[in-house]
């Protein structure tokens, strides 16, 4: 199996294909007239519908070229503001800037946004003052073997006017797993089709027969016959691509998630053979000999099944994992860790990006309006997009305000009716509650201050929240946008901003609808359980918006639920 970007104008092949097209079209015109007369009207209507379908899927398909126009592939526009999905291996040789040909014949500039070298997906943004035609999302989980499909793209860089080539076929298989080939790359839960996919089709769309996008074509099995289609192509499922989309918009170089355990297939069962020490799976209690029966919404029968579904999620994603332990059924929420270390990923990606071509483009005259949209930074495909997304979210978040009053005082009763009070300043965090009184020094490293006991660092989480929400000069240097991730007991999706502090990690989860701050997650180090602080029932008081219900989660359990009330009536703080 090989990647199928087109690295050079394959002139000979191009002429062969053209010649063939000419021959067929001549032949058909003489054959078709007599045939059309005999065809039932229903059939002709269907044919018309099919033509309509091709017309429908054409505009969102783009041809992608590196700036010298030497190589390229395909892509598909997924939003009217010009974001387009393609393969990592299509953009890897292009550097930060590329040219895109649209079906209407126009050629526009595009800039790299983010990439996922492991899943072979990349996001670019077309730069032009216009509305772009976007593809309609489909649901690749609904796709079944035998479904008719259409492929659109730019095989062999055939079309001088960028009008996509359309090929048809069926799905030959779904939920395919393709082992890593050449380092990072791994196709999990992908679609297999016999529709013709050739070099240059890479990154282009796979549609169902309702014209909905179900996959991003990227690989094909070639053997013996050279790099031409033999009826075996693979597409990344659109559900995976959508799950990664917000992460791609974060401008980062993305990794994939893993459960941190090894599974073996034993008699149709996926049996845990090894659990990584320090992984969330180990902390949640998954152990040797457990049978994994379900991950997310997918039933599991083999080790391949586990990898197949887990591989379609980014790191830090929390997945419900159902296990069977000698008849005992358990459902555990496991947070995925990254497959690769940051340095390993960076090195492997750098190798594929090919520093040379990037340098070459850097020397080339790039128009200022384009070059202002790119910012290099380690660990990022294009830091510019992280910055703008992060800043947009920070502005939109109603719980953030720079006021002269940075202190927070909250008091009320906990779930047992016992009084509590919280006092946060820039220097100090303090809590009094039923279990006693704790305080931490905000000027010292938060990592070593994990009180109150059994919370994983509630006070540290509170200090981080206070700084995020009300500090006049918050140190946002390390604050980045991660993408959408599930959080909390219901695993709802939120926009995640992440910062490191004193070697610990803090994540802020914002509602997708009103951008309000819903949760703060503090984790002192990767190998210990985090403190998840859910913030609900926000009420505006003057210039500030404060939560009135704080729920503290730690190690898979609720530590306590604090209801902010009329503090003075609620009783005196306990000593």
């Amino acid at each position, binding site marked *: 199996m090989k990647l199928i970007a087109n690295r050079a104008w394959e002139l000979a092949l191009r002429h062969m294909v053209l010649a063939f097209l000419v021959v067929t079209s001549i032949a058909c015109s003489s*054959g078709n007239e007599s045939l059309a007369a005999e065809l039932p009207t229903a059939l002709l209507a*269907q044919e018309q519908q099919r033509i309509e379908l091709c017309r429908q899927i054409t505009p969102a398909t783009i041809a992608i070229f590196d700036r010298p126009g030497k190589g390229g592939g395909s892509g598909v526009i997924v939003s009217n503001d010009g974001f387009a999905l393609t393969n990592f291996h299509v953009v890897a040789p292009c550097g930060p800037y590329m040219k895109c040909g649209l079906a209407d014949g126009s050629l526009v500039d595009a800039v790299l946004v983010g990439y996922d070298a492991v899943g072979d997906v990349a996001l670019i943004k077309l730069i032009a003052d216009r509305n772009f035609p976007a593809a309609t999302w489909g649901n690749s989980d609904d796709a079944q073997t035998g479904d008719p499909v259409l492929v659109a793209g730019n095989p062999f860089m055939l079309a001088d006017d960028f009008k996509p080539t359309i090929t048809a076929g069926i799905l030959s*298989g779904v939920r395919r797993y393709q082992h890593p080939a050449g380092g990072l790359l791994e196709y999990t839960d992908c679609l297999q089709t016999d529709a013709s996919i050739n070099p240059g089709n890479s990154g282009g769309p796979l549609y169902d027969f309702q014209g909905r996008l179900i996959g991003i074509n990227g690989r094909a099995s070639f053997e013996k016959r050279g790099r031409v289609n033999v009826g075996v192509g693979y597409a990344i499922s659109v559900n995976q691509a959508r799950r990664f989309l917000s992460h791609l918009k974060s401008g980062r170089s993305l990794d994939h998630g893993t459960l941190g355990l090894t599974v073996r297939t034993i008699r149709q069962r996926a049996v845990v053979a090894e659990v990584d020490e320090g992984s969330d799976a180990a902390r949640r209690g998954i152990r040797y000999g457990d049978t994994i029966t379900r991950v997310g919404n997918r039933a599991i029968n083999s080790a391949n099944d586990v990898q197949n579904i887990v591989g379609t999620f980014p790191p830090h994603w929390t997945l419900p994992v159902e296990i069977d332990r000698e008849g005992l059924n358990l459902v555990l929420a496991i947070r995925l860790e990254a497959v690769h270390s940051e340095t390993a990923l960076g090195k492997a990606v750098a190798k594929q990006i090919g520093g040379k071509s990037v340098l070459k483009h850097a020397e080339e005259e790039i128009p200022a309006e384009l070059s202002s949209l790119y910012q290099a930074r380690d660990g990022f495909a294009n830091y510019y997009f992280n910055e703008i997304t992060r800043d947009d979210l920070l502005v939109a978040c109603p719980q953030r305000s720079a006021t002269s009053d940075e202190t927070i005082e909250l008091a009320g009763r906990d779930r047992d009716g016992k009084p509590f009070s919280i006092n946060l300043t820039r220097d100090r965090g303090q809590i009094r509650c039923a279990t006693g009184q704790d305080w931490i020094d905000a000027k010292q490293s938060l990592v070593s201050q994990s009180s109150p006991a059994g919370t994983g660092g509630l006070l540290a989480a509170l200090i981080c929240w206070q700084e995020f929400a009300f500090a006049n000069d918050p140190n946002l240097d390390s604050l980045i946008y991660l993408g959408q991730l599930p959080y909390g007991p219901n695993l709802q999706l939120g926009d995640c901003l992440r910062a490191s502090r004193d070697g610990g990690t803090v994540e802020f989860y914002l509602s997708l609808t009103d951008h309000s701050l819903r949760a703060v997650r503090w984790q002192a180090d990767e190998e210990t359980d985090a403190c998840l602080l859910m913030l609900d029932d926000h009420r505006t008081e003057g210039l500030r918006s404060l939560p009135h219900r704080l729920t503290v989660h730690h190690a898979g359990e609720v530590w306590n639920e604090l209801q902010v009330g009329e503090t003075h009536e609620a009783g005196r703080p306990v000593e």
Partner: protein
Amino acid sequence: MKGFLLGIAILLAAPALVLATEAGQRAELPASLAIRERLEQRIVKIYGQGGFRSLEGYQTGIIVDAKGHVATTNSLALNAGEVTVVFHNGLRSSANVVGADSLRDTALLKLEQLPELMHFDLNGSQNGTSTFGETAFVVSNLFNIAAGNEPLSIQETYLAGEVPLAPREPWAQVLDGQTVLLLDSVTSNPGAQGGAVVDRQGRLLGLVGRELRSRLTGAWQNYAIPTASLQKSIDRILSGTADQQGSPGTQASADRRINTLQRWGFALVPSIVPRTPPYIDLVRSESAADKAGLQADDLVLMVNGYVTASTTQVRRQLLRTTDIVSGETSNESTILLTVQRDTSIVELTLPIKAAPKEEEK
């Protein structure tokens, strides 16, 4: 020329027909879950020798009776005589190679374990008829994409014709003169051989053939052995007797080819590349070859004084020798083999007529 035009017209019309009946929904049979699952239960993944580039150790097979016989395309993967078979549900069994029919390039396996099996009924009324231009589906484990209980791949194709492969050079190595189903897409991929070609209702049309390339034009042939022909092949393997059907001329020459080497009880190494050096792969003990002093790893340099540079040439020379001799009332009764053994040249004399019983195992 008229035929050519018609062919194209049919191909253009066929997809439209699919649409008309299904209104853009799932293509018929293999897409219909029930039929697909039934099909899957009758098709197995086969793992044997190989694993080198261009020499895959995996292929596909179809279960053809309740006794646990599996028909597949003959290949090097079966060379060890024993393979592993993986069923649709991921269960596996060993299987022994019962025999091969080099006339149709097929082989028959027998499963060691007999789980609840569903099988194709090759003689039954449920077999499809080949209507050309019609849609067909190929179900196989091409490229070994599916492991364990993972479902096989399904590809859509069209029946392009049922034609005898002319007994001339490009295809002569296998299928000399055999009638095969020609398929209008790349269906013969690594691992696909031995897969099932079915019609829209899931009825068996044929067995996917090997990857076959013309040495003359470089073109690849995508074909299948028709069901009826496959049944004959199975009968032939099971009975060990020659097939009486078909044109006598073709039949006779093919029969000779199958038995030529077994007659003396030795085998050449498999013909992997166009000029495979003619090494002796094995010599059965107590056979004519054994008695003549032939040994495994001998390299055949000459047959009756004719230089033999490849396994194909040895086979041809042996055929020619036996043809000539059987056609004449010559007093020649032996064949002279010149072989290289390590660093020495050895001459051996094989009797022309060896006991035919040694062909059977």
